């Protein structure tokens, strides 16, 4: 029973972390692009706010999402106890990773190439796809991987909003926590080892990516 519960928790964690990494890759690149290439009032403020999820305690992140999207929230939706709630909490805490890894690369990017492409008749979508994006791929991937590693182990922001129903909305870290509380340290340790292996793998992948990025 517990073994099946553990596997379900790990599966859910993996699925949600992959989803969150994918969304981050797109949304993070978009935000980084807007922050570097666009000009508007309050840009510096928005730029500073990007780090808020790093500075805000995770339990507070969970509470803030509950206040807006929970029961009695002002928007009238209640996501508590759904997988959407978990995904949202994970997106909140991992937001800075892709933005902060893409931003410096985008700033350094030589714009002459893009201008040359435009003068040769390329549309803006083609320029982005053929010139900008290939330069950003290592940064996007390493940012998304960092976010993935973080999402896999996330606890504080998820625990209040997820409902923590076994087989439905219980992620791995919450499962481990429950096992420790009921003194079943062995099964907690077993799931922990899987999480540890995952994070080590991701760390190694990021280092390999870093070498790839420098070698170019």
């Amino acid at each position, binding site marked *: 029973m517990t073994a099946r519960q553990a596997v379900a928790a790990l599966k859910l964690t993996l699925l949600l972390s992959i989803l969150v990494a994918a969304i981050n890759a797109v*949304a993070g690149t*978009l*935000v980084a*692009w*807007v*922050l570097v*290439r*666009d000009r508007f009032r309050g840009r510096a403020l*928005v730029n*500073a*706010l*990007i*780090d*808020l*999820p*790093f*500075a*805000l*305690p*995770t*339990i*507070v992140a969970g*509470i*803030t999402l509950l*206040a*807006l*999207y929970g029961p009695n929230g*002002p928007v009238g939706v209640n996501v508590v106890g759904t997988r959407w709630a978990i995904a949202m909490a994970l*997106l*909140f805490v991992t*937001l800075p990773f892709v933005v902060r890894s893409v931003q410096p690369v985008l700033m350094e990017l030589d714009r002459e190439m893009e*201008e040359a492409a*435009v003068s040769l008749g390329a549309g*803006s979508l083609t*320029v*982005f796809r053929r010139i*900008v994006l290939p330069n950003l791929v290592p940064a996007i991937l390493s940012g998304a991987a960092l976010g993935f*590693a*973080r999402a*896999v*182990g*996330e*606890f*504080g922001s998820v625990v*209040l909003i997820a409902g923590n129903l076994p087989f439905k909305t219980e992620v791995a*870290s*919450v499962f*481990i*926590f429950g096992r*420790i509380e009921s003194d079943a*340290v062995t099964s907690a*340790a077993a799931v*922990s080892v899987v*999480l*540890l292996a995952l*994070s*080590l793998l*991701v*760390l190694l992948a990021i*280092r390999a990516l870093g070498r790839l990025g420098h070698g170019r």
Partner: protein
Amino acid sequence: MVVDRRARIGLRVLALAYLAALLLVPVGVVFYRTFEHGLGTVWESITTPAAIHAFWLTVRIALIAVPLNTVLGVVTALALVRGRFRGKAVLHAVIDLPFAISPVVIGLALVLVYGRTGWFGGWLADHGVQVIFAVPGMVLATIFVCLPFVVREVEPVLREVGDEQEQAAATLGASRWQTFARVTLPAIRYGIAYGVVLSTARAIGEFGAVSVVSGKIAGQTDTLTLLVENRFQNFDVAGAYAASALLALIALLTLLVMTGLRPRRDQS
């Protein structure tokens, strides 16, 4: 990239809407909910004996963990950049681990080592020291999660400034300590400051690892973050919001200091 005006504004609106829905509006709602019944209720809620205890415990833990990590972090960064020893590559990889490991797993690791049935737990208990479900365990957990911050901030700066000035100081007869205090330290001071700010924010805000080893003894091992959860689980939602708002204020202050420090750090 040359993007026409309409597309650019469209992308801007999309990005800002995403940030608003995920970050800004939720944090705003917490502040609104906290203060909707007036300042008096908030003040009462964050000055209860339990809240004051949680506040001082949080401060105490941060005051032990952050200075320790700062000194150790600078030494480790120096070893990583200037030192030559076996296992340096391993140390390099290990330093980042606390960032990648789940806080709950960190807590579990501490329980397995220092807990009642852990490796050192029995010996420690015989000598009257309780680590797990007590403050020492919470300090250890905080040190663990904050470990990489100072190292990761100081290391690139050290690499950047190089060791030429240090060598010059040494040839002019400065002792090692003098070289460190007068040449190295001033060069890395903003990197250290930035690392200290990041680790302080994390030390105050850590929840998962501390939660596992705290044992949740009300009025004894509650930090501010644990108080938030505690109040929420006991249906004191307003109290949870008030404590959250206090922590969010600390986080905003952290952001402000980070933004102020960043240009100086990048300059040095």
